[in-house]
């Protein structure tokens, strides 16, 4: 059977049509219209009045916004600086040729990422309890830690970082493990290497080889951390916690847009977030391009 050239020319568009329709209507259009929406004050989804740039200027004078931004940045730094080195360490250990049961460890360490954040939050809302919570009990048994340590009142941010560490440490390990396959194989015997040699090898051989994936994982972590919402929202029963210690940007967006009903203000928060994340993505590209050129 022969196909006419006209039909062949149409084929790409037939294959693309479902995607393009959904993409234009539900991604491009809302992305563009959110810019317009951010210049209006709305009262629910149907009613709105133009307010110009005042959503943005109000945002910059809004202590809750700054609190949310600060918390989000602290959480992001905590995730990147504590979690990623641990992920890398686990990957390096797991990559040793003499490790037994490698698949078992990989699957186990990876498994928490399958659990949705909401369900992680449900689990940790009990695990972080005073006295009866598993976290305090474990720490108490091993270090004599205070059984009444108030994770969910005073130490919300460490609690969020610990729960996220549990959930994502193995996920990021998988990326590092893949990256370590680019590292030239070790020639010397492990037994002959002292600490200084191990460190120097890590700095001069391992680190440069995993850099491209490394910057990508940092970017993914920043993007993911910036969107933190469910964990604090469920852990603190839909509030920002005492003194808004657990209020994040997306939580604030949700509160203003869907509890107060001002979608315009929420859209402005969304744009500030998007600009921060786009700047991070641009920085990552720049860094990895430079590394490639060097």
């Amino acid at each position, binding site marked *: 059977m022969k196909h006419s050239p006209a039909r062949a020319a149409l084929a790409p568009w037939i*294959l693309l049509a479902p995607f393009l329709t959904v*993409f234009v209507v539900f991604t491009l259009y809302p992305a563009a219209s959110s810019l317009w929406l951010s210049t209006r004050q709305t009262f629910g989804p149907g009613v709105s009045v133009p307010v110009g740039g005042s959503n943005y200027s109000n945002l910059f004078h809004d202590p809750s916004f700054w609190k949310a931004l600060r918390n989000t940045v602290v959480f992001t730094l905590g995730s990147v600086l504590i979690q990623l080195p641990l992920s890398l360490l686990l990957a390096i250990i797991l990559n040793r040729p003499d490790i037994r049961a490698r698949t078992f460890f990989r*699957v186990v360490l990876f*498994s928490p990422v399958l659990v949705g954040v909401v369900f992680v939050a449900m689990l940790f809302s009990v695990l972080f309890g005073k006295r009866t919570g598993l976290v305090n009990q474990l720490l108490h048994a091993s270090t004599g830690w205070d059984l009444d340590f108030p994770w969910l009142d005073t130490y919300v941010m460490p609690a969020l970082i610990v729960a996220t560490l549990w959930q994502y440490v193995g996920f990021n390990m998988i990326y590092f493990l893949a990256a370590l396959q680019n590292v030239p194989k070790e020639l010397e015997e492990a037994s002959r290497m002292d600490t200084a040699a191990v460190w120097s090898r890590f700095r001069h051989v391992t680190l440069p080889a995993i850099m491209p994936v490394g910057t*990508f994982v940092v970017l993914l972590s920043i993007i993911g951390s910036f969107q933190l919402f469910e964990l604090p929202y469920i852990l603190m029963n839909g509030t920002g916690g005492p003194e808004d210690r657990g209020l994040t940007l997306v939580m604030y967006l949700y509160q203003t847009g869907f509890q107060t009903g001002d*979608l315009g203000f929420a859209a402005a928060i969304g744009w500030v977030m998007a600009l921060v994340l786009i700047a991070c993505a641009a920085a990552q590209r720049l860094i990895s391009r430079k590394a490639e050129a060097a």
Partner: protein
Amino acid sequence: MNPRQSRAMSMAPMLLCHALLSAAALLVLLPFAWLAFATIRSGPDFFTSTFLPSGDGLFGIAWDRLTLENYRNLFVTAGFGRSLLSSLFLASVTALLATLVCAMAGYALARLEFKGRGFVAALVLAALVIPPPLLVASGFRLLFDLNLLDSFAGLIIPAMGPVFGVFLFRQAVVSGVPRELLEAARSDGCGEIRAFFRIVLPLVQPMTAAFLLITFLGVWNNYLTPQIVLQSEEKFPLAVMIAQLKNVYYQDYGLLMAGTLVSIVPVAGLFLFLQRDFVAGLTSGAIKG
């Protein structure tokens, strides 16, 4: 140093590494184990014991106080079964549709020559940086205007064409579908659409499996979107329902933990089944991209 000592020296780091990995694995597994035991305790036992209640039974454990009451309450009183069905429906329908839509678009962008291909490909790449929270407020307004609020369609249709999926499938086609094969098929008179189903789909099968699972997981675990779009409780998927139950049965920890366990198990089973493909698909974006 005698040979025995030097062998012991070289064993030491290996043993230390196994000890560290085992400790990490234990810390990861402990909350799961705790969760499983928490669902079969109820009443005061929930708080007085960490794993199993102590008593006069074998090994000093009160076996007779273990109960399935939490699960009964979960399904009979709290109506969790309906949410389980909603989640299954939403996750599988969205996963199937999104995979098909993304595979078709990824193939067209990877291997077909047409005017505007560069533009569409650039648009897809650029859209990768749009963070979902940017679309929350305006997307809600759009669904309101389209009269899609409080419907499954309002959740499924917008999730059918994730740019991330098009990007992954384009990569998979570029590296997995040889041009010569498609040219041979064309010269035999095979149309592009038939070639997609007969040649391309079987060749990108690992990515298909990975992407089905990624999408299924994403929908199953998503909270923010269904929380915003759905209003009637009988439509709530598990993630929204469990948060709702936390507000209603806030003192019934056994019930809440049973609900959490029920929400986790199907996904874990599916993953163990597709584990290898899933991890391969996940990392391919980072390594080749």
